[in-house]
């Protein structure tokens, strides 16, 4: 196993890639009583067309298929595996986003038995017609639940404004699109995207790395899976200019919600790595708009907004950063952001304070096994490989930061508004 670091020597991450292509990351922590295992498939809702393994033609998958598969993966011949994990006193859950599908177990005892069970369930799919039909009702209700969530409604408006082609569809699909999903398509999607070579495993917490690796290597379900076939799907190329500078809609809100996003290509500056570009952009926004900024002080003292926070989105080489919040004075709020960006007030103390904050956040993450796992997953998905965040932090320099922000433009932007239903304008 290769030894990697997490915040320097504070946490060792053991890495191994098996012959079947499965990548394994193990971050042992002797101080905690629990272990966590995440299995991640590199399949998200942004994939809509692909070539199934051993076939030659592209096929379309109904919108919401990746999420539907997430719901059905715990089905086994003997019923829902969730009950087996419950019997074992293990917590399980799963989630799907545009980029990947993540499943995890968290437990305290019987690591070997539970890891084997998890691997068996993950790598031995079972798609049964009646249960697939039944799941359509549950997911339909999940979709309706999101429709009632104002933040979700605003997110749809934001995506429509910021993106031209990417992330247009909803992760869960619609009641109509999921009605087309059947066992055949689930199997094709599974066989293509859930090959060990297109999945990875992250283990953190109370675990012996060697023992964990031995269990994984000897698991029969993994051995049986075909792997190392090329995964071919259509990637949507996203253009840099925003789709529209202003987006509005109505929803079940009492007070309007808004967001103001700025869209960038992470390869914009040839002298900077994408990771450093994103880090500098984040630091800039937290200095300008974070808790403790002059902007924050003014917005609160003049009651321009009730609350606000910094948010980011990404797709391939596109990185989007913005400010979201709740305000009855959207125009004033937007003007204040514009004014702040037109007249950048930065000093070295602010920069160094932000670096301190970021270091302290990573150190705190070490205490939480799910934070450690999530950080590793995020790195692999966003960067294509695991990189210690501290390496990036240590490479940041104030002079370079100044150089970047002096060259940075804030023109590629989109402002979004979610108004109460009766106040549509």
């Amino acid at each position, binding site marked *: 196993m290769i030894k990697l670091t997490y915040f320097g020597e504070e946490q060792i991450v053991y890495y191994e890639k098996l012959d079947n292509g499965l990548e394994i990351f193990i971050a042992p922590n002797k101080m905690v009583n629990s272990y966590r295992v995440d299995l991640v498939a590199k399949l998200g809702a942004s994939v809509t067309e692909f070539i199934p393994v051993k076939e030659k033609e592209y096929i379309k998958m109904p919108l919401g298929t990746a999420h539907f598969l997430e719901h059905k993966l715990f089905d086994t011949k003997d019923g829902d595996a969730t009950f087996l994990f*419950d019997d074992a006193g293990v917590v399980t859950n799963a989630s799907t986003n545009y980029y990947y599908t993540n499943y995890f177990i968290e437990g305290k005892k019987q690591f070997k038995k539970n890891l084997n069970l998890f691997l068996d369930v993950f790598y031995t799919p079972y798609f049964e017609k009646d249960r697939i039909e039944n799941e359509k009702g549950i*997911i339909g209700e999940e979709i309706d639940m999101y429709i*009632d969530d104002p933040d979700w409604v605003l997110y749809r408006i934001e995506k429509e404004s910021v993106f031209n082609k990417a992330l247009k569809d909803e992760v869960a699909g619609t009641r109509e699109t999921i009605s087309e999903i059947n066992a055949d398509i689930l199997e094709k999607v599974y066989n293509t995207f859930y090959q060990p070579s297109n999945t990875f495993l992250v283990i953190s917490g109370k675990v012996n790395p060697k023992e964990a690796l031995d269990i994984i290597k000897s698991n029969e379900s993994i051995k049986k899976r075909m792997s190392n076939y090329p995964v071919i799907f259509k990637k949507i190329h996203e253009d840099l200019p925003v789709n529209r500078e202003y987006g509005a809609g109505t929803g079940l809100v*009492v*007070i309007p919600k808004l967001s103001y996003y700025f869209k960038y290509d992470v390869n914009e500056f040839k002298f900077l790595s994408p990771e450093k570009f994103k880090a500098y952009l984040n630091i800039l926004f937290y200095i300008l708009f974070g808790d403790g900024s002059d902007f924050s002080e003014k917005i609160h003292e003049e009651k321009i907004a009730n609350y606000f926070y910094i948010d980011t989105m990404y797709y391939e080489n596109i990185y989007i950063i913005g400010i979201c919040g709740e305000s009855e004075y959207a125009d004033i709020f937007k003007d204040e952001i514009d004014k702040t960006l037109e007249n950048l007030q930065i000093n070295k103390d602010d920069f160094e304070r932000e670096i*301190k904050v970021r*270091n302290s956040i990573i150190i705190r993450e070490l*205490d939480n096994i799910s934070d450690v796992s999530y950080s590793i997953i995020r790195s692999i998905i966003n960067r294509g490989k695991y990189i210690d965040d501290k390496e990036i932090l240590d490479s940041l320099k104030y002079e370079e930061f100044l150089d970047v922000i002096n060259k940075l433009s804030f023109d590629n932007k989109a402002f979004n508004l979610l108004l109460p239903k009766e106040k549509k304008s």
Partner: protein
Amino acid sequence: MNYKKIKCDNYNIHLINNKKYHNISFAVYFADNISKEKLAYHNVLVNILTTASKKYDTRSKIVKKTQDLYSISPYAVTLRCGNLLVTKFSISILNSKYLDKKIIKENILLIKELLLNPLVEDEKFNDKYFDLALNQEIKKTERFKEFFMTYATIKALNLSSDKEENYKISKYIPIDMLKKLTNKGLYKSYKEMLNNSKIDFCISGNLSNEQELIEFIKKEFKFTNKYLLNEVFINHYDKDNEMKIQFEKSDVEQSKLALVIKAYDLTDFERRYVAAIYNGLFGGNSTSFLNSIVREENAISYSTYSYYNRSDNIIIVNGGFSKKNYEIVKNIIYESMDRIAKGKFTKKMLLNAKKSFINDLLNYDESNSSLISFFYGKEIFKGPDVKERIDNVKKITKQDIINISKKLKIASIYNLESDL
């Protein structure tokens, strides 16, 4: 891990010394008897005290100070716990291994500054900050209608009794009441918090010099408080009341149901353990009746579940589903209660409910903040240690579950019904 409780003149210090984590959590708790007005004032108070002090007269200065100390900004919260109002001020300090040892004391002094040196003149807080904090409370109450399930639950609780009762006091204070709050009243409430509360200091983390820390706290914090706290648990005496049902039309896509079940005349054992296991069996776990029947068998809801509020002696059911399925869901809830009351559940279901509860108990030391919550909870609820709790859960029998079923009664149903 080593726990010590030090009784000082007017407060306790709880030291939870452990070498597990990279941070140290420090919290000060004030517990007083609840009233709606007191909660309203404390909601404003926790905001204003963490916004400015005499030394740091803006929020920005406080944030920058904490960032310089590698800490997370001081956090304050107030919440009702049964018949009590608990207000907590806390800060998370990075482990001294990475920093100068003095940093722990500096962080504690920052909490002291915010708590005991507020921006006050003429027995009232700074007018500007009072106005801002009050305005934020008003917006919070306005906004809460966007949280449809919470809205339905509060409506269901209000519907469950005609009387003014403590369990009906929610953190969302009515706007007409908020508008009556005054700055002088806030200052009075602040002084009462310091003078009439039970006060507890909790510190969890790698504490290299315990005695020095104890002496430091004793030197810096002096109170002259006197208090008489009510029993924390709320009891219900309206078993003969009829169940109330109310529907409200709404633009929601999916109906939101809240159902209140009251527990009557529980023994201490039932309240602490049996009711929680009943809830696990009924709707608290993935293998529970509600999840299995409503979601997995009938596929008419993504999420219908129940949770047990021990200090209020109440179980609440929440569910979201299509309007047309209201009767089906309601009947499943009734039938599930009936099946449990008749003992029609397997040993495995009971065992799973126990395992789940025990697993939650064992998470008590998964972070410094959870350790503090555990030991402060023990102080307030007078609960036993984890081992005894687990032993008690293991003792629960099928008959215990059947017996407690007879002490539960649905008090109200509130359905926020889709009008689409």
